[in-house]
């Protein structure tokens, strides 16, 4: 059963990529009812926080639209690095390793 909701269609669901609830609902209505499809076609969850904010909200939307329970919805793959890391820092780590005792 869809739950009663308070948010408006313009409510931002993914704040990194500025994706609204309305955009997500529109994709679900087109048949894209997995987190992976919505991620690919809208960028929801692809930003700096890697879905930490929107993941559960998105699952809630899919559950409400499809009648599935959240546990039955396949999650997107979690990908490293968990936190954004500067390329310069990674390059330095490589140089230190090569300059030090080596691999």
């Amino acid at each position: 059963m869809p739950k009663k909701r308070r948010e408006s269609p313009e409510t931002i669901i993914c704040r990194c990529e500025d994706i609204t609830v309305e955009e997500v609902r529109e994709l679900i209505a087109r048949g894209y009812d997995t987190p992976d499809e919505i991620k690919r076609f809208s960028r929801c969850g692809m930003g700096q926080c890697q879905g930490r904010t929107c993941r559960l909200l998105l699952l809630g939307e899919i559950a409400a639209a499809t009648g599935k329970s959240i546990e039955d919805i396949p999650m997107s793959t979690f990908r490293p690095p968990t936190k954004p890391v500067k390329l310069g820092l990674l390059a330095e780590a490589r140089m230190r390793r090569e300059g030090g005792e080596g691999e």
Partner: protein
Amino acid sequence: MRSTADVVVIGGGVNGTAVAYNLAVRGCRKVVLLEKGTLACGSTGRCGAGVRMQWGTEMNCRLARESIARFETLGQELGFDGDIEFKQGGYLMLAYHERQWEQFGKNVALQNRLGIPSRLVAPDEARRIVPHLSLEGLLGATFCPKDGHVNPFKTVQAYAEAGARLGVAIRKFAEVTGITRTTVRLKRVALANGDEIETPVVVNTAGPYSRQVGRLAGVELPVHSERHQILVTEPVAPLQGPMVMSFAHGLYCQQTPHGSFVMGLGDPHEPKGFDIGHSWSFLEDVAAKVTQVMPILKEVRVVRQWSGLYNMTEDAQPILGQVPEFPGFFQAIGFSGHGFMLAPITGILLAEMILGLGTSLDVSMLNLERFSRGELIREPSVV
């Protein structure tokens, strides 16, 4: 459930959706597209999103030229209500060794003969094109302003939705478990859920898993898969027009219209296989190389890394056409890392072959038999 189709396409990446759309738009009525997972979950959705005409074999140049010409108007052609994010910022390809520079000279001569507007550029001109480029060790570069970027996800969505409006039945989570001949003409495609589809034509667009799909039909295809790793950064203000590519580093790096940088490395020691995991050493490798070539990128943050599979052939050119001993079983496989960018023309060519129309381009040399005959012309410009 048993059903029938005119054509069954196996694989819901860019080539599968492009073939299905091009069949439907040419009047083919019952096209069924089967995808094991979800649309663009394989190599298409994992690729670097670059499109270029700067190739080293005549065939790859022709396929790429025709594809990019179509990308220019693809959104409108498909009636897509989104944006496929086609950006022609060019490709700047860097040479650090004499041998590479000589190869670039040959490539540009070939490309120009085929009407591709690439040119050799000296280091100072390369720096005018990409102001943050380091000139250390750089001999020269080639540049083609018509190369660029397209969003692979949106392209698949555009093809899939245009196909669906024309009647293509797209089934996700539909894994094929068998392809058997029932009559001289007909095949039966069996699905994991027990469904069966009878059809005269099966198209293999399964990308990295195309060899497995071939085996379901008892056909051994001369392709193998190998992992390529890739990463994306946070979005930053527009900084870099072209894709920057260096074969010496095995590196490619482009800023997308979204603002993020997408970059990857080819690893010559990567074993054959289906591993799509990721490694920390890749992050350090690519960071060390890309900041050497473009030091300003030290300040940009990586947000995500992943990997995908190239489906390789011995000559790094695709296999397009029918299996001689299995008429009606068509292949669009073995794109060797450039399947996304060649999809617009591949979709057209496969539809023309299947419907018995003349092909827009003579691609007979991309037949399957070339491997047993040893008629291979190897593409030299693959990262």
